[in-house]
């Protein structure tokens, strides 16, 4: 182990400083504190209860892929863990330095390198803040159309690491649909590029291999992604249905009719009564469904009319375009304090995705698992990313007064995840849709994948023989304690 009391510590620091310069190797307490806590509830709980989450030994800010390569070579030499860090806003503990080591903070690699208006792509270093990227692309007259709730805090690399999703995913896709190609530094320090286009018949997709790999298979340093024209119009409409099922029937019909909404969101009755009321001021009983279309105005109007006609076939209350627009205008407000859940509450987003045939069963199975086993918890949910074949469930549990003892609170928290996610898997869900696996859900990867997990492990061992890259995440081997 490397510790400040060990002379190897100064040796490693000297080597890192030689690569990136004095300003870009931090070992001070303030930075280490910031990097010991991400948006995962567990380290937040530890801090809140006066415990100290594990800090990194070094925080290093590389300027380019070559520096990343040199850092990884140093880490291999000394067998030190390397944990890539983007905005630190991941909710799964994927960026936590659980064994100490080097946190590779990528934010210094923040340049927009090229905007190609002919092919409509942007190439950028992946440490760029997503909002800064969007502003730069908008200045050139385009949009990434990637509008996640974490746009202001997360980096492009962070989204690539855990297959992130934005509000407009239904039309523009998840990050894996947006990415054209990647530059990656492999764990042993080779700088490689994946093929320049995502559609080809030139072997398996290396780009796909690194998308969602959460820094366990290498460090993504550069990405080319699609951009889009600013739409002439974007319009929303909202309905209130008596039950979540009625709203689900309408929403899935919109999708299976092959209309092309840019967004659909459906809140269950509990979340409509709690969050929709609090944030949007809509005080009604029922399930709130909102959807929108964008593009040329004539086409938007036609599609909106069709979607509204589908909704009007069921028992509904038409909340109109204003209520829809209000949701869009306040879409990020849900995630700001005090609207977002916060300490001392215990809370988690049990997000999963399944086909339309299975998604309601997944919802009820998760709800049952939480309500029957944890009466102190409230279960709420909304369905927030819709595809041709199904949709994502953004379920959450909230405990207003969890145990004060940190270990007890975390144990309870983990038990809820164990039961709820396993219930989802049983009904055809997966362990996650867009927040990733990280530390939180790694223990379930083996049972989710079955024998196929050995393939992932083989890939990991081949690329990262010393297991330096983000060990102990995604269900891969740790470093031991």
């Amino acid at each position, binding site marked *: 182990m490397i510790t400040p009391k060990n002379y190897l510590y100064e040796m490693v620091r000297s080597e890192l400083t030689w690569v990136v310069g004095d300003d870009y190797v931090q070992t001070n307490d*303030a930075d280490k*504190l910031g990097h010991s806590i991400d948006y995962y509830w567990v380290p937040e709980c530890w801090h809140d209860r006066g415990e100290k989450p594990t800090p990194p030994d070094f925080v290093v*800010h590389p300027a380019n892929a070559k520096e990343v390569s040199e850092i990884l070579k140093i880490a291999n030499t000394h067998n030190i863990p390397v944990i890539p860090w983007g905005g630190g806003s991941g909710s799964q503990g994927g960026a936590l330095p659980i064994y100490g080591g080097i946190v590779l903070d990528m934010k210094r690699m923040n340049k927009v390198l090229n905007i190609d208006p002919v092919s409509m792509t942007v190439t950028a270093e992946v440490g760029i803040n997503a909002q800064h990227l969007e502003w730069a692309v908008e200045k050139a007259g385009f949009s990434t159309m990637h509008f996640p709730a974490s746009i*202001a805090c997360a980096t492009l690399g962070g989204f690539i690491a855990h297959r992130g999703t934005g509000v407009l995913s239904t039309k523009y896709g998840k990050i894996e649909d947006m990415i054209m190609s990647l530059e990656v530094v492999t764990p042993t320090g080779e700088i490689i590029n994946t093929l320049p286009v995502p559609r080809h018949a030139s072997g398996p997709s290396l780009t796909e291999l690194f998308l969602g790999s959460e820094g366990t298979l290498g460090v993504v340093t550069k990405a080319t992604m699609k951009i889009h024209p600013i739409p002439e119009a974007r319009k929303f409409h909202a309905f209130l249905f008596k039950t979540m099922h009625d709203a689900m029937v309408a929403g899935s019909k919109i999708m299976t009719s092959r209309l092309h909404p840019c967004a659909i969101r459906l809140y269950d009755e509990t979340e409509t009564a709690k969050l929709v009321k609090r944030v949007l001021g809509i005080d009604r009983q029922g399930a709130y469904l909102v959807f929108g279309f964008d593009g040329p105005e004539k086409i938007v109007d036609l599609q909106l009319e069709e979607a509204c006609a589908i909704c009007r076939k069921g028992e509904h209350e038409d909340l109109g375009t204003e209520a829809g627009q209000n949701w869009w205008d306040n879409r990020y407000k849900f995630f700001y*304090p005090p609207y977002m859940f916060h300490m001392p509450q215990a809370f988690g987003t049990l997000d999963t995705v399944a086909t339309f045939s299975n998604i309601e069963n997944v919802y009820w199975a998760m709800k049952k698992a939480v309500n029957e086993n944890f009466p102190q918890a409230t279960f709420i949910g909304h369905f927030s990313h819709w595809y041709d074949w199904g949709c994502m469930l953004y379920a959450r549990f909230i405990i207003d007064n969890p145990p004060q003892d940190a270990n007890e609170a975390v144990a309870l928290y983990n038990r809820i995840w164990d039961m709820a996610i396993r219930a989802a898997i049983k009904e055809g869900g997966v362990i996650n849709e867009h927040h990733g696996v990280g530390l939180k859900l790694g223990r379930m990867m083996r049972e989710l994948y079955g024998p196929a997990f050995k393939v992932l492990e083989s890939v990991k061992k081949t690329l990262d023989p010393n297991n330096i890259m983000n060990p102990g995440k995604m269900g891969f081997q740790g470093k031991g304690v």
Partner: protein
Amino acid sequence: MHIEEHQDVINACRFCFMCRHLDPVGNVTFREADTPRGRALVIDSIRMNPECLKNADFIDALYRSALSAANRYHCVSHYDETGLVLAARQDVVQAGLAPENVKTLAHALEDVAFTVKGKGDVLYYGENPKLYPGCKTISGKDPGKALEVLGFVSESRKVFAKFKKAVAESKCKTLVVAEPSAYDFLKGKLSGVKVVHCTEYLLPPKAKAGRTRKACYLESDFLKNYDGNMAAPRELLKSYGYALEPFGTNGEESYSVGEGAVVYDELNPALCQKLCSRVYGLAGDAKGALFITASRYVRDTLKKYNAKIEVLSVEDAIARRNA
């Protein structure tokens, strides 16, 4: 401790990432400790264990903040992270833990005298008295704002008392203030005296607009983020024929190179130079452009690290039109 008066802000900011893209220092150092979340975590650690107040790394993080308040202004709930950092600095100073460079700077700021000259019913406090014929002028250094942001609150009050006395002796009932930091500090503090910003006083224009000139107006941290996005500077510039163009990629970030921290360049010159470099970088596609700022501090600091950039204060810009 003063930080305990801001418990709601600590609770809101310590685990919140939603404004990190707007921290000017975080955007050039890339350090977690230079974000509102990072500072709130540091302050929360101090709250839980007052011994942490002695941690030099924590104190350093508190004094690296540029206090732009862009984070607060654009926060949906406007949590006052800026006020939290100021409270923490006050705790540091009261515990006798201020770093040497901060103490030295504070002592220099205490050494101030204010002098009133001229005749008139209006008192002007700034560097362009020719723009204010018929006004008295009050001269002297910072009226206490800089000491306040450094955490030397009682010393700030003593300096302000000198300023207040000089204003009272002038018998003027209107005080026109040019520097946004001083305006922010003085407004509402002088009973019986109306404090206005110079751009409010100079409206409506006293000269014809003349030929239009394009310019980028760099928003003031104080006039925008602290004082409700005051429209007067932009209106005044427009009325004097300046066609204002947006700077950078967005209207949310602060490009005021530490204006919110008043003496940031003296406190953190290397960091301040980085803030300036970011502005120059963004100005790269606006070569030959004219930049206008409400703040003398911003003008002088931007020019200090790049003599080629053309930056005027709003008053300079008006004086140029009047000439």
